[in-house]
């Protein structure tokens, strides 16, 4: 049987990818960011997942305003790194797991989560930066990846509670897949940041630390937090944090914190990171 063993939450700041791709990860500005992921790289090398379900958002790369799916699951064999205006990131092609992805789509839809099924989709920094942070710069990604895109660009994104319950439905779907697969789920985005307008540059460390605590200890309570509070306290783009609740919902009610990291700044954003293991 397939099983979800752990969850990873991480910011997906594009400048982190650019720093890595341009050989700047050793610079004083970036060193502390990458240092925070050294333990994570060792952890995932030991964990050896067969598949990562990667919850992220597209940033006007694959989806413009023509189609705005709230939840989209990538069922393709492969996903190309997107050209976000500077050429695609020099990272390996992402290999999907169509069999499990289609099983997830079927199971989730019958479980009343009306997923958009995607057979062709380029993946932007929202997906590739978390892979780079966790796996470094390999020739090929060491596992299959199922992209699960959540709309957080067009307001309103799905509620925190909806995201949390989607995670629970993903857990049921994975548990019912007959092949013996080890699955790790990533929730990405955040933490506090605002990229637009006169309030750009907003960081709220107190909010972020409280979110990290509560995601571990009281996810149901965190799932009830309305969008307004994220926008007000964590910035207009801080609302990406609802995606972490998908990851949390797919884990046991009680989890063990294997790693926790927080750093300000990475470009315009606070960086947060958790590794949670089912107890």
């Amino acid at each position, binding site marked *: 049987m397939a099983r979800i063993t752990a969850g990873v939450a991480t910011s997906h700041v*594009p*400048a982190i990818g650019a720093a890595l791709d341009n050989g700047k990860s050793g610079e004083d500005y970036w060193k502390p960011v990458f240092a925070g992921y050294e333990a994570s790289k060792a952890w995932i090398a030991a964990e050896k997942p067969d598949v990562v379900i990667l919850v992220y958002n597209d*940033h*006007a*790369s694959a989806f*413009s*305003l*023509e189609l705005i799916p709230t939840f989209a699951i990538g069922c393709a064999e492969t996903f190309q790194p997107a*050209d*976000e*205006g*500077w050429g695609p990131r020099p990272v390996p092609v992402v290999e999907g797991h169509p069999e499990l992805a289609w099983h997830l789509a079927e199971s989730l839809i019958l479980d009343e989560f009306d997923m958009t099924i995607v057979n062709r989709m380029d993946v932007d920094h929202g997906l590739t930066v978390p892979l780079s942070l966790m796996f470094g710069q390999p020739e090929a990604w060491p596992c299959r990846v199922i992209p699960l895109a959540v709309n957080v*660009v*067009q*307001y*309103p994104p799905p509620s925190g509670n909806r995201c949390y319950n989607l995670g629970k439905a993903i857990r049921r779907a994975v548990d019912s897949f007959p092949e013996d697969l080890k699955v790790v789920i990533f929730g990405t985005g955040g933490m*506090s940041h*605002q*990229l*637009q*307008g*006169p*309030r*750009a*540059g*907003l*960081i*709220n*460390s107190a*909010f972020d630390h409280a979110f990290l605590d509560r995601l571990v200890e009281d996810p149901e309570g965190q799932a009830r937090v309305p969008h*307004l509070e994220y*926008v*007000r*306290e964590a*910035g*207009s*783009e801080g609302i990406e944090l609802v995606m972490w609740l998908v990851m949390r919902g797919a884990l046991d009610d009680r989890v063990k914190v294997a790693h926790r990291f927080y750093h*300000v*700044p990475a*470009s*315009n954003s*606070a960086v947060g990171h958790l590794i949670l293991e089912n107890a």
Partner: protein
Amino acid sequence: MSAKPYHDIPGTIVFDAAQSRLGYHLNMFCMSLMKADNRAAFKANERAFLDRWPMTEAQKRAVLDRDWNGMLALGGNIYFTSKIAATDGLSFQQIAAMMSGVSQPEYAEMMLKGGRSVEGLRSKSEAR
């Protein structure tokens, strides 16, 4: 347009249904800049390229003037308008500095010191 609770947050435009309807063509113009040919055509003659899109004159003016906050007010979304910045060779942090009315070194310094504090910026009634 009815008042929404988030209209109370200072210095912030939430990209909601009203903004999305207002800015559809502006954002789709921005999206076209994902293609190198379109970037070249835009750079060669900005006005002529903008005239291909059913945008309002005010939206076109905001693009020509690189009025980043103006574009957002007219329905632009930051993930789309930042494609103009990329075409101009500007980083996200450079336009963030422009939108918040400070120089890029000042903005970078603010971020190194922990970013912009939320104190006084939660709601317009609380704002300085």
